[in-house]
Structure formats: structure tokens, C-alpha cells
């Protein structure tokens, strides 16, 4: 069991420092023009440690983490596939790193070529007419999408359309985004089959409908079989369809949202296109649109005049919803996605969809054979599926969260447990295509062992984890007694 690491401030000693990293001292006179009243009177209290101390500290911290590089990480809806090292290496070539965002286009044709081709490839896999790369995360991509829908209706003078329909199984960002765009959310139920309730949808649409936000396959891990009818109903009522691309991995190379009738989509490049999750970011939420929404794309977008690439800005897109990022979004992330897509190529895209789905269906079947309950047992898994531990919670008092914590002891990161809210005691499991059969089998073995423990020695599961750097943490205390910054005389 790894030894927990002190907080870096505890290593701090006055006068220590990575002195070799500091620029030469500047004569005080050189700062004389800065008025005293605008000057800092005391240096900020940052840690004072040597370089080796800092390196050891942060290296040891890294060793306290689970990561894709070290563990199977079947987090549903997160697509924790392998992040190829080549993507990082070539995105970090010195010329790409050194380029200033406002450098002239003439000195960025190589970079712009990569981004333009990325736009084109994303159009091709999604079946859309235009792509903008600047949204910096899936949530920002969603914002852009809903903002474009609103802008579209306003441009047509249809000001009453301010309602966004969201299935009750939707990810929390969907309703939050709708509210951020000044829209009202209307939730509709999902049928027990896992598909959207078509009758409820028919009742929900009307002249107030701006659009509907859907994921397909849905957050329940199943394909929305009635999607063409859903599109028909919403379009007939004058609304538009927004596609949350969180689950694009399931259908990559096999089907395209544009063909399903979606008018606008966002894609999570940090999921489907394997850019690093980085402990919480940076992501990239590129948006794709059909012809109707092309004028509203957020700027900047990469355009091409003959052989030359250039940025398209407000002058080129006067109806754009505007600028979402100080510069042009997460360029380094976009380069990684570009490299990944070039490595995949046409056939590779298809393999992603195929093997992600094969792995999910295999894992589902093996878990069912081991006695676990699938939430939608009558459906095919997409690239993910839900196992419900409702029975274990009811009969053994062992919850999905308990299983999740015990899995950590077995060397597996837990699947997603916090949604969909619709399924109680759920584990949303997404293996991704880069995992081997052996890994999946090992996961099933672990789950079976935990089930046995739950039956025979439930305390072992409910008090898990036992072998991690910390035991289960007191969330309530964390929220009641807020300790958000380190203080020298802090007490537990």
C-alpha cells in the first residue's frame, strides 16, 4: 500500500528553491517606475523547495492515482480508451508548442492544415456539413449547440421557441446547458425498453419547442431505435435535433448522426478521439452542424482559399453565435485528435465501433452468466451497458457504490455509478475497444468474487476499499467543515 504523501507546503523551508530555474536577479532600480502603492509588499507564500524535492513529491503523487496507463477503467460514458503516445509526442513538437495564437497565418499553414483536415474528417464521420473546433469541452460544445438552435429560431423571427426537450435519462449537463442558454427544460420519460417514449414526445412538442437534446446510443447504453421517428416528430413541430456525442464511440464508422436527422452535434474529442483526460481536462467539444445552422457556427473556424488556410472570423460569419474562447480553443488537444484520426484512418474508425460494441456485448453476456442483472437485458449493448445491483442492495444491503469501492481493491477502477439517475444501484460499464479479452475476463472474475463476499462477508465490501492510500472518505465532513486550502496550523 503506497504511503500517503505530505502536502508540498510541509516540505517548504525558507530560502530553498530550484535556484537554477530562476532568471538573474534584476536591480531594484529597474522596478522603480512601478508605483509603491501598486506593488506587493510581501512575496506570495508559495512553497520553497528544491528541484529534486519537487520532482519526488509530484512523482509520488502521480503514483497514488489509477489511470488508463495503469488500470482498466470501464467508466460508462467516458470512453477511457488508450491514449496513444504518438499523439502526445507529435502534438508537442517544438514548433507547435512555440506558436503564439496571434502569430500571422502565413507562419501557421502547417498547423492550420492539420486543423482544417480535422474539421473535414469530423464532418465525414458525423455526416454534418460544417464543423467548428473552438469549444473547449463537451459542455461548451453543448452550449454552442443549443445557442445555435436559439439563434436559428430568432433569425427566423420565431421568438416563442424557448423550450428544450430532454429525456429523463439525460446527463446533467444537458438541462444545465439549456438553462444557461435562457431556455426552459421539459423532461420526457423513457419507456421501459430504454427508448424515448414516443407518445410522451408527441404531447411535448409544439410551437414552443426549440429542440430536443438526445444521445444515441442513449445514456442507458442502448440504441434509440425510434430515432428516425423522433426526428420526424420534432422537425414537423418546427424544432431542431441536438446530438450529445458522448457515446459516439459506439457507432463510429458504423452510422452517422447526420443521417439520423440531427441538426447539430457536439463531439467529445477527449472521449471518442482519445485525447487525454488529464485528471479532469482539457477536453475539446467540437461542434458539427447541418446546412441550416452553418451561419451560426462559433468563431474562429478554419477556412481555405485555394491552397491557403486562414481563420474565418466575425466578418466571414456575421451571424455566428460568437467567440467562446480567448483564442481558438484547445489547439494542442485538437492536434492530438488529428493525429489519432490519421492513425485510425477509414478502416480504423469502423474497427473502433465494431470492437467497442463487441467488447461491451461480451462483457455483458459474461456478467449475466455470472448472475448479474442487466438493466435492459432484452437489448443489445451498444459500447456500454448497465448492470443493476438493486437485488443485492435489497437482499444483502450491499450497494453499487460498495461494489465500486471493492473493485478498487481488485485493481479495477469502478464503472460509473452516479448516473443515469433512472436506474437505481447501477453500474454503467464501458470497456472500450482497446481492452483485451483477458482483461474483460479478469473483471468478471473480480465481480464474481465480490458477489460472493457480499453474500458471505458483506462487511468486507461495505467497508471497502482496504488497500488504497485512504479508506472511504467522509464526504459530509468535507462539505460541512470546509478545508479548501492548506494552513500551517491545520488540525484534522
Amino acid at each position, binding site marked *: 500500500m503506497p504511503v500517503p504523501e505530505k502536502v508540498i507546503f510541509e516540505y517548504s523551508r525558507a530560502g530553498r528553491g530550484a535556484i537554477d530555474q530562476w532568471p538573474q536577479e534584476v536591480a531594484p532600480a529597474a522596478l522603480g517606475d512601478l508605483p509603491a502603492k501598486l506593488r506587493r509588499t510581501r512575496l506570495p507564500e508559495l512553497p520553497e523547495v528544491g528541484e529534486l524535492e519537487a520532482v519526488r513529491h509530484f512523482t509520488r503523487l502521480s503514483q497514488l492515482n489509477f489511470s488508463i496507463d495503469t488500470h482498466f477503467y470501464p467508466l460508462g460514458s467516458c470512453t477511457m480508451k488508450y491514449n496513444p503516445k504518438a499523439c502526445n509526442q507529435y502534438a508537442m513538437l517544438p514548433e507547435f508548442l512555440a506558436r503564439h495564437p496571434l502569430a500571422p497565418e502565413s507562419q501557421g499553414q502547417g498547423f492550420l492544415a492539420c486543423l482544417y483536415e480535422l474539421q473535414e474528417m469530423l464532418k465525414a464521420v458525423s455526416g454534418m456539413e460544417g464543423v467548428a473546433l473552438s469549444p473547449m469541452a463537451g459542455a461548451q460544445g453543448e452550449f454552442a449547440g443549443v445557442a445555435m438552435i436559439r439563434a436559428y429560431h430568432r433569425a427566423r423571427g420565431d421568438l416563442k421557441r424557448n423550450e428544450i426537450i430532454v429525456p429523463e435519462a439525460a446527463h446533467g449537463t444537458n438541462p444545465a446547458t439549456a438553462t444557461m442558454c435562457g431556455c426552459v427544460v421539459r423532461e420526457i420519460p423513457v419507456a421501459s425498453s430504454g427508448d424515448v417514449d414516443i407518445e410522451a414526445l408527441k404531447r411535448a412538442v409544439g410551437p414552443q419547442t426549440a429542440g430536443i437534446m438526445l444521445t444515441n446510443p442513449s445514456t442507458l447504453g442502448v440504441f434509440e431505435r425510434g430515432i428516425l421517428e423522433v426526428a420526424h416528430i420534432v422537425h414537423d413541430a418546427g424544432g431542431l435535433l441536438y446530438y450529445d456525442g458522448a457515446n459516439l464511440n459506439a457507432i463510429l464508422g458504423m452510422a452517422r448522426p447526420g443521417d439520423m436527422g440531427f441538426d447539430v452535434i457536439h463531439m467529445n474529442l477527449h472521449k471518442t478521439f482519445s485525447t487525454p483526460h488529464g485528471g479532469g481536462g482539457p477536453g475539446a467539444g467540437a461542434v458539427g452542424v447541418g446546412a441550416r445552422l452553418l451561419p451560426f457556427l462559433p468563431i474562429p473556424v478554419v477556412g481555405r482559399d485555394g491552397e491557403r488556410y486562414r481563420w474565418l472570423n466575425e466578418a466571414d460569419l456575421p451571424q455566428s453565435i460568437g467567440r467562446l474562447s480567448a483564442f481558438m480553443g484547445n489547439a494542442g488537444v485538437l492536434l492530438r485528435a488529428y493525429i489519432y484520426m490519421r492513425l485510425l484512418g477509414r478502416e480504423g474508425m469502423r474497427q473502433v465501433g465494431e470492437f467497442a460494441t463487441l467488447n461491451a456485448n461480451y462483457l455483458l453476456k459474461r456478467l449475466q452468466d455470472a448472475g448479474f442483472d442487466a438493466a435492459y437485458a432484452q437489448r443489445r449493448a451498444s459500447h456500454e451497458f448497465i448492470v443493476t445491483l438493486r437485488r443485492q442492495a435489497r437482499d444483502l444491503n450491499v450497494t453499487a457504490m460498495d461494489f465500486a469501492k471493492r473493485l478498487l481493491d481488485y485493481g479495477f477502477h469502478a464503472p460509473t455509478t452516479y448516473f443515469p439517475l433512472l436506474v437505481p444501484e447501477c453500474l454503467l460499464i464501458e470497456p472500450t475497444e482497446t481492452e483485451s479479452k483477458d482483461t474483460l475476463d479478469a473483471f468478471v472474475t473480480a465481480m464474481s468474487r465480490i458477489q460472493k463476499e457480499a453474500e458471505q462477508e458483506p462487511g468486507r465490501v461495505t467497508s471497502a476499499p482496504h488497500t488504497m492510500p485512504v479508506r472511504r472518505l467522509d*464526504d459530509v465532513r468535507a*462539505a*460541512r467543515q470546509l478545508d479548501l486550502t492548506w494552513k500551517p496550523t491545520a488540525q484534522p
Partner: protein
Amino acid sequence: MSNLPADLRYTKSHEWVRTLADGTVEIGITDHAQHALGDLVFVEVPDAGRVVKADEPCAVVESVKAASDVYAPIGGEITAGNPKLAAEPEIVNADPYGEGWLMRLKPAPGAVAGAALLSAAQYQQVLDSEGD
């Protein structure tokens, strides 16, 4: 089966209402609500003097799992928010109908409860139909 004092009135959104001797009303959340939320970590109550309409959200109860709005069952002027809850939100969990009161309000003249107030039995029916 949660605790439901018979002398109080209730709302569908899980608030309770007690009429005090001086005509002001005292408002809190029910035992069912505090149980569903789990340990409360934070409570925000309205300032005295604030005027609220019936069904207006005017307080927030926050647990680790969820943050929920509390709605004014009746319109009027807030006379007090419970001052103890800032430091000890857990009082609401421990004593939701007594020490865990959230706010007191002077009903506006002729004020009508927005969502009709329920008796204990009626509120119990609401809980039963929600499948608890």
C-alpha cells in the same frame, strides 16, 4: 414510515407548515425529505424582511447528494430565518419538525396557499404514491 405530526399541514414538495399563536407561520422540511437528502451540509435561509410569493423558492437545503430548493407554501413577509442552521445544518436531520425549522413568515393579508396545504393523511398518500 416517516414521522408525520398530525397537527401540521404539508405540501407536495415536502415542506411542513405550523401556525403559531401570533398568526405567523413556521416552515420546515419533512422527515421524509431530510431522510432522502441525507446528512445536510449546508442550509440557506432567507433574510428577515424579504417578501415572498406563494410557491417561490426561498431557501436551499444541501446535502452531499443533492441541493434542493424549499418553496414558500404561502405568500408573505419573512420574519426570521433559523440562525442556528448556518453552523449546524444537521439539526434539520435530527429534529426536522422542532429545532430544525427553516423560517418564519407573516402571511400577507388574504394570502392563499399556492399549492393547497395537505393534511398529514393527504401528505402520507403523496408519499405512498411516490413508492416509498
